């Protein structure tokens, strides 16, 4: 995609935890370069620990990269950008002491929306995700799927151009996840946001994405980018199409080796750790 003026430009971003020479040092991400076009939904998929969530947090300014730069619009990202970027996290990041409506309005208060506007914007955001009747409920009175809808409403109400979603449906069951995915596709067709969506579900990536960036095992780097040429909103019938299956199969074969690598590496690491412990003990 060569849309004029990318929404997000990620250039040569690397990230590590711990210093050089430290045995605990982990290189989470190596030299990732990626552009997200305006109005595009880009999925990041990869084995666990490949740094896809780290990259998402770097893109939104929540984590400063060890190397490389991120630009949003014309701006270099150096910290959170609440006017440009909204997040939906995996776990329930709703505040449990506030009602659903208060949660949505609190986000706008933090962002600096005038009080007069908050009420109406909260109402329409909750309407959009189908939670208007649950505005006065507390998060723990809702199901997991409804909580993530509420989190999405909070993000939508901020009216940012960019939405960063970190496995937002990861904790939900397969069926709820499918329905939320369909609804999200409909919403996105209306709102035209630029989105990075981290997932470990092949089906979710194939169903939602305009492009899928497949990560290699740690140290994570982008192995391949696959385009999904299918307009939003995606119909439920897309899931049963030959195109969807071909996509899913391609993603599966790309990921399969990486996941094997991750599993055997962690098994090796465990074996060597246990070996060291046995030596120390003997």
């Amino acid at each position, binding site marked *: 995609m060569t849309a004029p003026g990318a929404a997000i430009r990620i250039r040569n971003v690397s990230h590590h935890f711990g210093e050089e020479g430290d045995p605990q040092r982990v290189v989470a991400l190596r030299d990732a370069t990626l552009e997200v076009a305006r109005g595009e939904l880009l999925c990041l998929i990869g084995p666990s620990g490949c740094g896809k969530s780290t990259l998402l947090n770097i893109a939104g300014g929540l984590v400063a990269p060890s190397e490389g730069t991120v630009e949003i619009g014309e701006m270099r990202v150096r910290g959170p950008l609440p006017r440009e970027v909204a997040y939906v996290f995996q776990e329930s990041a709703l505040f449990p*002491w506030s009602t659903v409506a208060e949660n949505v309005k609190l986000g706008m208060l933090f962002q600096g929306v005038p009080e007069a506007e908050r009420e109406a914007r909260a109402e329409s955001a909750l309407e959009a995700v189908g939670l208007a009747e649950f505005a006065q409920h507390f998060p723990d009175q809702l199901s997991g799927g409804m909580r993530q809808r509420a989190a999405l409403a909070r993000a939508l109400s901020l009216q940012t151009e960019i939405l960063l979603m970190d496995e937002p449906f990861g904790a939900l069951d397969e069926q709820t996840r499918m329905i939320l995915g369909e609804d999200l596709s409909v919403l996105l067709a209306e709102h035209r946001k630029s989105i990075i969506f981290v997932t470990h579900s092949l089906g979710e990536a194939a169903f939602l994405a305009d492009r899928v960036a497949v990560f290699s095992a740690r140290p994570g780097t982008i192995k391949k980018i696959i385009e999904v040429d299918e307009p939003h909103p995606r119909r439920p019938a897309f899931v049963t199409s030959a195109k969807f299956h071909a996509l899913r199969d391609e993603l599966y074969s790309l990921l399969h080796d990486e996941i094997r690598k991750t599993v055997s590496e962690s098994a090796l690491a465990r074996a060597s750790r246990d070996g060291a412990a046995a030596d120390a003990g003997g």
Partner: protein
Amino acid sequence: MAGRPEGSAGAVIASRAVQIGFLISAVALWHLATVRGSVSPLLLPRPDAVLRELIDVLATGEFLGDLGVTLGELAAAFALSAAGGLAAGYLISRSRYWIEVFEPLLAGAYSIPIILFLPLYILLFGLGPASKIALGATISFFPIAMNTIAGFGSVEKIHIVAARSMGCSQYQLFRRVLVPAALPVIATGLRMGFTVALLAILGSETISSLSGLGHRIVHLAENMHMARMFAYIAFAVAIAVVLNVVATLLEERGKRS
């Protein structure tokens, strides 16, 4: 959530009935022991004599001065320990290092019987209310400070990250995220602090003091006015129960808001 299942409401009524039945039989036993039995009225006066004294205490308003002293001491002690405990707890909770340094110290101090320092406090602050206030404030400082540390320490990281991502200021983070997240645990600390302050103050009044409910009870005992002493004990217990119920209700409200 409309109403509880009937079984649980029935169970509450049943357990209340057992509790009330237990109280009634305790009084009945007391009555039998003193009227029919051979228990000396010097050790245990008759329940009706205690009731007459209690009515007299209430009707004459004799209790007002002592109650005022005890409640005044309690209010002053609690205000000091709440202000000190909340401030110290919050400041310590700001740094992992300070938590590691101070939490074991506070926990250790909480587990020693601080009432043993009463003689020192009396030397420092005199026999009057000041020594009771100082002791009550010291004892209740620890649960308040420790629960404040625990409360601010229990804030979910994801809530802080989410608030930051939406652009909250430092003040908004404190007021809208840290305080409401920590409040349930802090409210419990305040309630515990209040209860131990009341115990410490009544206790130290009975050991050495010039006025207050504890002082009155010991004074009556020393003069062998046993029925009136029991009346004052019943009165002090009733006051303590009322105060603890109020504190628990406030704690529940703190947890819900």
